């Protein structure tokens, strides 16, 4: 066999290997592409685009997912969250177009149909049940706090009224949202991992490379957990601080750009 024949044979072998490898991942690839497409649509809605037709197209294309077992729990949660976002954005009213009404009904139908394992009392999975209900909105009201300053030699202990900060956001709800996102991120990262340290490594990479704040929080959480369980976490703490510094400097430059504009 000549050299060129050997190489041609090797070429065919490699090509066949790649074809089969991708074929094995075909189903998963389709799911990821579908979720990715839905995510793009949701982002479009958030940007103010009317993508009602695109949502309709997405439902038409992926309706079979409801009857098949291609979706993992993490996929269902991701889809439920994205559909929830879309439903909030389309704001159905009496004057809404038939297309919007139909999409809204379709989202509700999706949420009802895809309830399976892990159903709650009302028959819906926790994540999917969010589609039909308005997002929980808790409002904290509090007066100015009395803060006791540290004791010093020349200053008598007294109560200081702190300048009340405008309570513009609901911190409990905001923290809940971050916790949920962080949990989803953990579900995504842990998929192919065999040890929590590998998950932490990925999470730190994500925090550094993508300047992902959720990944930073997740990394901190994992590091603290590992520390409590006797692991040596110093190298990871160092990386966490690097990621934090990068994020802070990125946020700082964004803020100053905003101020300039």
């Amino acid at each position: 066999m000549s050299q060129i024949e050997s190489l041609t044979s090797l070429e065919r072998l490699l090509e066949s290997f790649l074809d089969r490898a991708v074929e094995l991942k075909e189903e998963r690839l389709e799911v990821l592409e579908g979720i990715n497409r839905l995510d793009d649509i949701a982002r479009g809605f958030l940007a103010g685009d009317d993508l009602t037709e695109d949502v309709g197209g997405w439902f038409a294309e992926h309706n079979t997912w409801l009857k098949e077992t291609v979706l993992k729990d993490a996929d269902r949660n991701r889809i439920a969250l994205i559909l929830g976002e879309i439903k909030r954005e389309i704001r159905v009213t009496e004057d809404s177009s038939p297309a919007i009404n139909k999409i809204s009904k379709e989202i509700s139908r999706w949420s009802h149909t895809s309830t399976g394992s892990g159903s709650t009392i009302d028959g819906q999975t926790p994540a999917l049940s969010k589609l039909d209900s308005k997002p929980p909105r808790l409002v904290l009201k509090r007066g100015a706090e009395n803060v006791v300053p540290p004791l010093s030699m020349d200053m008598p202990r007294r109560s200081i009224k702190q300048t009340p900060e405008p309570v513009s956001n609901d911190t409990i709800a905001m923290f809940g949202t971050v916790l949920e996102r962080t949990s989803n991120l953990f579900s995504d990262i842990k998929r192919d991992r065999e040890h929590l340290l590998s998950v932490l490594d990925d999470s730190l990479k994500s925090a550094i490379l993508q300047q992902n704040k959720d990944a930073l929080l997740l990394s901190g959480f994992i590091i603290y957990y590992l520390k409590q369980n006797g692991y040596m976490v110093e190298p990871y703490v160092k990386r966490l601080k690097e990621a934090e510094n990068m994020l802070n400097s990125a946020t700082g430059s964004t803020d100053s750009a905003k101020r300039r504009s």
Partner: protein
Amino acid sequence: MLNPSEKAYCLALRAIRQKQYRAAIDYFDKAAPFFQENKEFGLLQETTRLLLAVRAEIAVLGNDDDIIVEEVFSDGKEAKFR
């Protein structure tokens, strides 16, 4: 949702499915920092790279004088000609 690296991995697999191996390598390279320790990712990336190297060697040995002009698109934008 999907982070840019996951998205690039996804696109790399799709490129392999369409036998666009050079585009696949570009996507693999984009995704590499995130998937550095993923053995499956490494295997697919290196196999694709090897396939391209084998093809280049075949072209040299076969004295292939044909010039293949192919447009390569990345994220819907023209990236380069080869």
